[in-house]
C-alpha cells in the first residue's frame, strides 16, 4: 500500500511537471507581449524593453521556465504582472470559496442523482422512469450558464427565496451549488439506475426477500448500499469536471473563487496567475483521482491496488 501511494505520488509529480511545461509553452507562444500590457499605451519602446528585462521575458525559453520551476520549488508562485500581488495570496484568498462550492455541488449531485436513479430503477419501464431519464439527459446536456441564469431568475428574482448572487451565507451557496451539481446529478442518476437494476437481479436480494425481510429493509439494507458503492468511488473524478464548471458558475453567481481569478487573468495575459491557477487545479484533479483509486478497494474488496 505504502509503495503504491509513493509510486502514485511520483506519477502525480511527473504529471504536474508536464502540465506546467505545456502551459508555460502555450503562454510563451501566445502572440501577445505581457510587457506591453504592463507598460501601457503611451509607453516608449525603452520603457517596454526595461520591463521585459525586469521580468526576464527576454531570456531564452528554457531559462524562463527554469527560473519559474526553481521559484516553484521554493513555494513561490511569483507576483501578478498587473496587480503586483503574490499569486499564492490571490489563490489562497479564493480557494476556500471554490472548495465550498465544490462540496456543495457534490452534496447536490449525490442527493438529486441518487434519488432519481433509485426511483427510476424501482419504477423501471414506467413513465416515471422515462421522464426521470429525460430530465437527467437535459441536466447532462444543458449549458451551465443557461441553468445558472434560469435558476437565478426563477428562485432569486421572481420567488425571492435566495439572494441574487454573492457569497457569505448558506443561502448564497444553494443556487450555485445546484447549478454545478445538476450536470453531475444527471450522470449519477443514470449510473445509480443501472447499478440498482444490476443489484436487484442478484441472488442475495432474492434470498433476502425469501427469508421474509420487509421490502424497504431489503432495499435500504441490502440493495442500495451495494448499488451505491461503485458510484461513491467516482466522486474524486468529478473534481476535474468541476474545475471547468466553476469558471462559468462563479462568473454567473459572482462567487469569489479561483475560476473568476483565472478568467480575469486570461483576458489580461497575466501569466503568473494563469500558471498558478492551472497548477492548483491540476493538483486538485490529481489528488481527486488518487483518492478515488485509494478509496475503491476499501469499498469493494475485489479491487486490488497494484
Amino acid at each position: 500500500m505504502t509503495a503504491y501511494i509513493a509510486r502514485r505520488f511520483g506519477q502525480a509529480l511527473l504529471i504536474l511537471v508536464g502540465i506546467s511545461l505545456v502551459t508555460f509553452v502555450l503562454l510563451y507562444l501566445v502572440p501577445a507581449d505581457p510587457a506591453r500590457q504592463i507598460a501601457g499605451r503611451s509607453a516608449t519602446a525603452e520603457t517596454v524593453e526595461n520591463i521585459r528585462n525586469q521580468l526576464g521575458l527576454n531570456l531564452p525559453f528554457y531559462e524562463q521556465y527554469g527560473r519559474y520551476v526553481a521559484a516553484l520549488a521554493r513555494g513561490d508562485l511569483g507576483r501578478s504582472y498587473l496587480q503586483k500581488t503574490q499569486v499564492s495570496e490571490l489563490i489562497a484568498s479564493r480557494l476556500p470559496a471554490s472548495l465550498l462550492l465544490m462540496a456543495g455541488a457534490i452534496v447536490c449531485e449525490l442527493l438529486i442523482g441518487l434519488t432519481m436513479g433509485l426511483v427510476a430503477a424501482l419504477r423501471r419501464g414506467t413513465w416515471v422512469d422515462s421522464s426521470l431519464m429525460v430530465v437527467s439527459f437535459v441536466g447532462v446536456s444543458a449549458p451551465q450558464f443557461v441553468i445558472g441564469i434560469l435558476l437565478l431568475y426563477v428562485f432569486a428574482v421572481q420567488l425571492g427565496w435566495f439572494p441574487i448572487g454573492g457569497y457569505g451565507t448558506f443561502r448564497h451557496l444553494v443556487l450555485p451549488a445546484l447549478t454545478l451539481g445538476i450536470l453531475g446529478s444527471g450522470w449519477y442518476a443514470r449510473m445509480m439506475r443501472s447499478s440498482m437494476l444490476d443489484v436487484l437481479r442478484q441472488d442475495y436480494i432474492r434470498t433476502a426477500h425469501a427469508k421474509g425481510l420487509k421490502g424497504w429493509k431489503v432495499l435500504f439494507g441490502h440493495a442500495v448500499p451495494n448499488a451505491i458503492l461503485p458510484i461513491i468511488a467516482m466522486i474524486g473524478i468529478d473534481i476535474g469536471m468541476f474545475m471547468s464548471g466553476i469558471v462559468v458558475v462563479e462568473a454567473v453567481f459572482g462567487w469569489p473563487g479561483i475560476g473568476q481569478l483565472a478568467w480575469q487573468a486570461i483576458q489580461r495575459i497575466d501569466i503568473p496567475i494563469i500558471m498558478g491557477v492551472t497548477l492548483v487545479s491540476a493538483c486538485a484533479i490529481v489528488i481527486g483521482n488518487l483518492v478515488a483509486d485509494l478509496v475503491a478497494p476499501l469499498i469493494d474488496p475485489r479491487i486490488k491496488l497494484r
Partner: protein
Amino acid sequence: MRNALLAGVAAAALLTAIAPSFAQEEKQGGSMIVTYKDDVSTLDPAIGYDWQNWSMIKSLFDGLMDYEPGTSTLKPDLAESYTISPDGLTYTFVLHKGVKFHNGREMTAEDVKYSLDRVTNPVTQSPGAGFFGSIDGFAAMADGTATSLSGVTVVDPYTVQIKLSRPDATFLHVVALNFASVVPKEAVDEFGADFGKHPVGTGAFSLAEWTLGQKLVFKRNPDYWKPGVPKLDEIDFEVGQDPTVALLRLQKGEVDIPGDGIPPAQFLQVKDDPTYAPLIIEGGQLQTGYITLNVHTPPLDNVDVRKAINMAINKDRIVQIVNGRAIVANQPLPPSMPGYAPDYKGYVYDVEGAKALLAKAGLPDGFTTELYVYNTDPNPRIAQAIQQDLSAIGITAEIKSLAQANVIEAGGNGSAPMIWSGGMGWIADFPDPSNFYGPILGCAGAAEGGWNWSKYCNEDLDAKATAADSITDPAKKTEREQAWRDIYLAIMDDAPWVPVFNEQRFTIRSENMGGPDALFVDPVHVPVNYDYVFAKNVQ
C-alpha cells in the same frame, strides 16, 4: 492600456454647460453600494490604469491639479495656486497647508517630488511614466542613470518647482492625472509591491477593508481638507457581480450603481421601462471608434482606396447595432473635445462614389483583405456589418476575431491590414486634442509595437503638432485649438482611419442617489463622482 473600456477621461456631452454648483447644503452621511464584475486590480495610483480603478484612486488620492466636479475644467487641487514662467518652461506650485495623509502625517513638497520620482522610475513599472516626458531629467530616469528627476525642486515645504525640457501646453492636465497623485514614502516603503492593496493618500475616502474577490469598503476621511466633502460616509464596492445580475439587484433595491453599466442585451428593455428610464443619465465621452487602414499594406497604401473604404461604410447602421448608444463620427476627435471641427462633413456614405474611386485606383473588381476585431460582443457583429459594406464595393474582408491582446499585438507589429478598434479604441486620458495624436496617429506611435495601427507617419504634421503644443500661453488657446483642428483635417485627407462613431455613456443609479446629473456622467470619474454624489435618505 489593460482594459477594453479604459477611460482616462471621458467628457460630459455638455462640456460647455455651466458647471453645476456644488454648494455644501447636502448633509453628509449614508452609504452606497457599487458593483463590478472584475475584482479591482490595484489602487496604486502609479499602476492603476483601467476605467474601474481610475475613479476609485481619485477618491483615495489627490494631485496638484484636478477638474471641477462634473466638468473637464482644470482647477488647482493640492496646489493652492501655481505660476508659469513667461517661457512656459517653469511651473511653480504652492501647496495647501495642513493637508494630512490617511496615516496622519502632513503632506509637503517633499512628497510631491517623491511621488513624481517614483512614477517615472522604471522599477515602478508605471504605465503612465511616458506622460511625464517633458519634465527635465526624464530621459535620465527612463534609462536608469538617475533615481530622481533633476527638473523637480523642493523650494520650501510648501512650494515645489517643476522645470520642463520643452514647452508642453498639456502639462497641467498631466499633473491632474492619477499617475501624479501624491503618495507618502513611508507607506510605499512599508508595503512595497503591495502598496496597491494598502493605499495611503490624502483623498476624501480611505480604504477600510478589502476582501480579495469580494468586497472593498471605502470610509469617509474625517480629516479631509475640503470642508463638507465627501457626502457619503461609506461606499461598498462588491466585485465579482455579473452586470445582468447587478441590474436585477438594482431593480430589487440592493444596489445603487451597477459599475459596469447596463448590459447591451437589456439596454432597450430598461430604457423603455417607465420605472427605470428616469434613473438613466446619458452623457458623452471622449471616445472614438474607428477602423485603421494600414498605409503600408497594398492596396491600402493607395489613398484613393482608403477614401473609397471611408465612403463605403454605412455608419448609421453600425450605430443601430449598438442600440443607438453612439453618434456617427466623421473625424478623429469626438464632438466634446476642444479642436473638433463642427462644420466638417467628412466622407459621406456613397457606394457608387466608392466604386468609382476604386476603379480610379485600378481596382474595379475590388481585392481581398483582412479585418481584425476584438472577439467580444458587439464587436464581431460590427465587423460583419463592415464586411458587408465592403463587399458592396467588391472588397472581400476576412474577419479575424481574436482576444484583445492578440489584436493589439497584430496592430502593433503592423501585420493587420484593417482593425476595428471597438473595445480597445481610444478614450482620451485628458480633455486636450493632443491626446488623440501622438500615440495613435503620430510618427512616435507608428514604431514597432506602437498604438498607431495605421502606421501612418506624416513628418510635416508631427512638426505642426509639436508647434501647437508649444503654445503655452492661455491667451492663445483659440489659436492652439485651430492648429489642432487643421492637423486632424489634414489627417482626414490622407484617410488612415475610418472614424465610425463616438460612444455615449449611460449610467443607471438607484432612486436614493442624489446630485446633479453631471456627477453621474462625470468626464473624469467613471461611473460617477464618488466624492460629491449624496444619499437622499439622510437629507
